[in-house]
């Protein structure tokens, strides 16, 4: 049993609070109604602090980018602690993999892959339960009663028989003297009062409604300079020479430095830095740069797809049975590069002093970034402190396996020898053209039917760049040459088809930087598989829901969302001419989603009018946040369905801003209904799984109206 005595507790408290001091103070990112806690605190574990002022601080090991994780983790703690929701505030954890690692990822701290609630579900509840037990023991000692006779409700500890009561704050100091319990019992799900309720309003709502929420872009430090970088126009390009004479004479400009990936202009404010960059003349060395166009890449992929690839899944004898099939169907699909285009363009603040470095960023991968910065600056990682701020969206981009823009900020700080703190700001154009896109892909699919019209064989071949090759993730996510993120959603297709083969080609001559983009592999595999299956159903003259129902017999959770979505969307009921419905179902990150899209086609154009979403994510921790994530993730996918496309011309990215990389706007947002399947399974993620299936649902709906099939994203109707 671990006994924390008061002296130790104070020592730990102090050590944890002090950290790296660089002589300046930025208030920690606080979400919630209350002021930061003051006075003495009870710190039973790394996740819960209770102040004598009765404020409970939940330390979030995950970053908040809109997905609601601050509220989610706080709900789990508050549930088992029996705290009042109003007394909870949330603070971001320091980067420290020893305490704040993602349990789904092993030894790194990070947020992604819809893992936050799934990995922390038990951990956070235990943190709350453990704190509760110590508060109860403190009250028992104080009142000289048995702990079993004490109850806790809404942040009040009571002993009914003696009519004694105390707040958490009153007991905090005494509780700190208690031993941390070795064994704790968690609540039975039937006793949950916060989990699954809508009594847990988001902790970050107010700050995000009155302009006080602090993002990286908003960080202020004394003598802070803003850096804007002229990047090479082609990936792999380098600076040959540059002239900064004009720039250096401009007011506000303080310095111009060359860095490995371009030329950085440092100024007193953003606008001066940006104007300074406009006046630079840079000659680029493109000798090692990537100079192909999107069409060239696609042409290469077409050729590659003629050859067999590495086998990602094999069941039965797909090739042989395809030959015996009475009827076969073939299709090929093309997917463009996609930019994340979060509303907050990339940025990062660093303060490097020569011996230490402090970083402020809305990052999804705190500890990897910490090591990358340490390496760049030649520092011991111990001397790099990472502060995690809110991110203005990310969708995967702020989880860069190379810590690209963070390293860039550190490189600039190093180039000016840490004279001043630096805020690196990418303009929208830099963000759009800076790479790390969802890769381009090419898929071919073939299905074979037997005489009776049953699905006999399925062959799927995928061509596209690997996201993970060459990164730290390669070791555990690339097996036998197969990058899991290239085939997920296809290699685990749930349909009962006796002969199946899924193959992968990973070209390695394309230098365009690629990365995960909300729902990763499923962004393309869900489209090809779910539209192709629809085509198979039409060939069989079967209703798309009926065929899926037959093929999903052994997959009750897929089936559950399929049936729920179909029922709520009035599947099978007639619609007026020009309107139609389409359905798609898919599992990603262990969450099951079905969507029914309703479209109208008129004058060669279409609108998506209504989307019904059914989701099974196990126990629904925060139903309203789940709904919000379904609405938002579907909308994010719809943007790529309707218009998302990054293209290259001779190696240069052709899009620059929201006029040529158009994203979803309110007039394109359909009516959305979300239905959550009741479940007692452990909770799974909700940030991504609604994204990939809106495109196939819409494509299938358009087919229902027009008879046209779609083999490319974004979708376009034939004239």
């Amino acid at each position, binding site marked *: 049993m671990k006994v924390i005595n008061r002296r130790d507790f104070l020592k730990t408290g102090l050590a944890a609070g002090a950290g790296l001091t660089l002589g300046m103070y930025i208030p920690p990112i606080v979400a919630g109604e209350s002021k930061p806690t003051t006075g003495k605190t009870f710190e039973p574990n790394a996740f819960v602090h209770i102040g004598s002022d009765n404020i409970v601080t939940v330390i979030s090991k995950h970053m908040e980018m809109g997905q609601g994780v601050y509220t989610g983790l706080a709900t789990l703690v508050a549930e088992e602690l029996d705290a009042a929701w109003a007394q909870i505030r949330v603070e971001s954890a320091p980067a420290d993999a020893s305490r704040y690692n993602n349990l789904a990822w092993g030894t790194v701290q990070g947020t992604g892959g819809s893992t936050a609630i799934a990995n922390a579900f038990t951990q956070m509840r235990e943190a709350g339960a453990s704190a509760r037990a110590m508060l109860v023991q403190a009250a028992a000692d104080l009142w000289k009663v048995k702990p079993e006779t004490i109850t806790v409700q809404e942040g009040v500890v009571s002993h009914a028989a003696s009519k004694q009561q105390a707040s958490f704050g009153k007991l905090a100091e005494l509780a700190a003297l208690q031993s941390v319990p070795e064994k704790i019992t968690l609540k039975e799900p039937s006793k949950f009062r916060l989990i699954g309720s809508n009594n847990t309003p988001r902790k970050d709502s107010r700050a*995000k409604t009155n*302009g006080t929420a602090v993002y990286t872009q908003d960080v202020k430090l004394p003598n802070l300079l803003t850096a804007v970088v002229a990047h090479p126009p082609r990936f792999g390009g380098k600076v040959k020479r540059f002239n900064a004479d004009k720039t250096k004479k401009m007011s506000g400009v303080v310095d111009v430095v060359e860095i490995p990936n371009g030329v950085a202009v440092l100024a007193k404010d953003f606008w001066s830095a940006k104007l300074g960059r406009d006046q630079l003349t840079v000659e680029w060395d493109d000798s090692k740069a990537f100079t192909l166009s999107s069409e060239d890449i696609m042409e290469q992929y077409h050729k590659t797809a003629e050859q067999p690839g590495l086998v990602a899944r094999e069941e039965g004898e797909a090739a042989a049975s395809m030959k015996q099939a009475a009827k076969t169907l073939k299709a090929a699909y093309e997917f463009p590069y996609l930019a994340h285009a979060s509303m907050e363009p990339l940025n990062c603040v660093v303060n490097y002093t020569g011996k230490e470095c402090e970083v402020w960023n809305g990052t999804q991968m705190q500890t990897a970034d910490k090591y990358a910065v340490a390496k760049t600056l030649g520092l011991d990682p111990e001397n790099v402190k990472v502060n995690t701020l809110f991110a203005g969206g990310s969708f995967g981009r702020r989880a860069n396996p190379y810590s690209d823009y963070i390293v860039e900020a550190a490189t600039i700080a190093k180039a000016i020898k840490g004279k001043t703190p630096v805020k690196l700001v990418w303009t929208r154009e830099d963000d759009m053209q800076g790479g790390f896109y969802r890769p381009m892909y090419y898929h071919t699919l073939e299905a074979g039917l037997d005489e009776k019209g049953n699905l006999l064989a399925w062959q799927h071949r995928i061509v596209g760049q690997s996201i993970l090759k060459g990164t730290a993730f390669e070791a555990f996510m690339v097996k036998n040459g197969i990058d899991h993120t290239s085939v997920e959603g296809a290699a685990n297709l749930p349909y009962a088809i006796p002969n199946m083969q899924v193959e992968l080609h990973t070209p390695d001559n394309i230098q365009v930087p690629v990365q995960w983009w909300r729902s990763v592999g499923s962004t393309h595999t869900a489209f090809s598989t779910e539209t192709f299956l629809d085509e198979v159903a039409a060939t069989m003259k079967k209703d798309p829901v009926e065929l899926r129902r037959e093929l999903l017999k052994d997959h009750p959770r897929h089936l559950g969302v399929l049936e729920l979505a179909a029922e709520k969307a009035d599947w099978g009921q007639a619609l007026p001419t020009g309107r139609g419905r389409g359905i798609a179902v898919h599992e990603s990150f262990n969450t099951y989603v079905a969507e029914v899209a309703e479209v109208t086609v008129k004058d060669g154009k279409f609108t998506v009018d209504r989307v019904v979403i059914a989701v099974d994510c196990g126990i629904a921790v925060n139903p309203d946040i789940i709904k919000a994530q379904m609405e938002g993730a579907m909308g994010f996918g719809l943007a790529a369905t309707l218009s998302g496309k990054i293209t290259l011309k001779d190696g240069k990215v052709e899009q620059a801003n929201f006029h040529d990389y158009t994203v979803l706007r309110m007039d394109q947002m359909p009516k959305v209904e979300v239905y959550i399947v009741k479940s007692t399974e452990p909770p799974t993620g909700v940030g991504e799984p609604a994204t990939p299936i809106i495109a196939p649902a819409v494509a299938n709906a358009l087919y229902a109206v027009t008879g046209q099939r779609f083999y490319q994203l974004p979708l376009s109707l034939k004239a």
Partner: protein
Amino acid sequence: MITLEINGISHHLDVDPNTPLLWVIRDSIGLTGTKYGCGQGLCGACTVHFNDQPIRSCVTPLSAVAGGTITTIEGLNSKEGQAVQAAWEKLEVAQCGYCQSGQIMTASGLLQNNATPDDETITAGMTGNICRCATYHRVHSAVKEAANTLAGKATVEETA
């Protein structure tokens, strides 16, 4: 020297008059609630009120608003603004939140000009504001909610 009133405080600014108002607000004045999203008038993240009308501060040079009155999210205290903020919190509109200052400034401007917008008017009025988290469904409902709140208040005042 350019004089400008921001959130009720008068500022004398020794700034290049061509500087976009957004950067004056953020970097010279230090109010960071107004956001940079595109810098080209395409996304609405930088929306503030100039003499009570919503404008895109990223494409508005300082010279164009000289002598005028600017309201940013930090100073939004009109009855429409407060109704909008309350509705935003009630319906939990914000996800990442980055676009929401702009959404709220646009929505309150919309209600100042039209207290009883119908669904199409709300959509048309809000379509200039991009939200990559696609909170549109809730933004729309929250504008309606705010309009209802304001109408309710107006009725009470009339009867009183």
